[in-house]
């Protein structure tokens, strides 16, 4: 005979799995969003520490 009704155990496991799924999707969305923001705003930024790259900064006294 097939099991037709979920036990409480299944409900609890579903809650955990669904919660973790939402967290992982949220994390992906955050990384994606951060990437978009960094790329849009960070043309003078260097990769890992987000500090302005000296070679990309306008030289002192340079004419605009």
């Amino acid at each position, binding site marked *: 005979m097939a099991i037709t009704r979920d036990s409480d155990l299944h409900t609890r496991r579903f809650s955990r799995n669904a919660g973790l799924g939402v967290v992982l999707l949220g994390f992906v969305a955050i990384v994606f969003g*951060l990437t978009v923001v960094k790329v849009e*705003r960070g043309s003078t930024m260097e990769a890992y520490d987000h500090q302005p790259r000296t070679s990309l900064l306008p030289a002192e006294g340079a004419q605009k």
Partner: protein
Amino acid sequence: MSDISYIQQQDNEARFSDYIALLKPRVMSLVVFTAFVGLVVAPNPVHPFVGFVAILFIALGGGASGALNMWYDADIDRIMRRTRSRPIPAGKVSEREALGFGLALSGISCVMLALATNIFSGLFLAFTIFFYVVIYTMWLKRATPQNIVIGGAAGAFPPMIGWAVATGGISIESIAMFLLVFLWTPPHFWSLALFMKSDYHEAKVPMLTVTHGREHTRKNILVYTLILAPLAVGTGFTSIGGPLYLATAIVMNALFIKGAIEIHGRTEVQAEADKYAVEKRFFYFSLVYLFAHFAALLAEEGLSHIGLGVW
């Protein structure tokens, strides 16, 4: 393992909400609010999405330290009435699981904060977690009745981290916000300890009420409140303050001092007669007190944005 014990173990399996409970969501709300204010009142603007992510990972770091605290304090939590239903004493999450969960979240939150904002903020968050877990939970909490005072620093760092997210450093304003929470913590927790006396006593945590008596605790509440008041008002004269903040701080501190004097003037007989009504009122007011100060800082920032800032 017998069939019965297997079934019992399965019955106690954790839900998603049990892992959320490990993060101490109520403490997290204070972290989120103060870190948010620290970030917003800082002079450098932060992209809203970066700001949101920063607050999220500061909160997650705070939650991770909560999970590590629950892992280490599981023995005490089993004794205290207030903490007996937490996921570890309730048998829903094992101690090892909580340790792994806390460590993993600590790493993720610090690295992500550093990547999203700046390295200094990430390191600051790591230091805060270290301070709360190692200095407070593992060392001071069970060693000295001043545990609350020094441990309170961990709860006071979030506004400084928020400020560091925007500025990449520390300044007099961020230290003022730190001191506000730091000096507020002892009167807040000791007033709680006055009407939750049996719990700390049974768990053998050297709370001031247990080691030095309740009269001494009442005196300490007044002393810390008196030190806190000029500092809270003085913050109004920094660049993040203003007349609105000053007015709020003066009213709030006058009421806080009044409450502390009342607590100091009471005997245990009087307190037991009215079921610690004054102590409870002071404890709940302390929550309003802190919220009002940070809300006033936020309001000052809003006013300066629309050109109504005074200094």
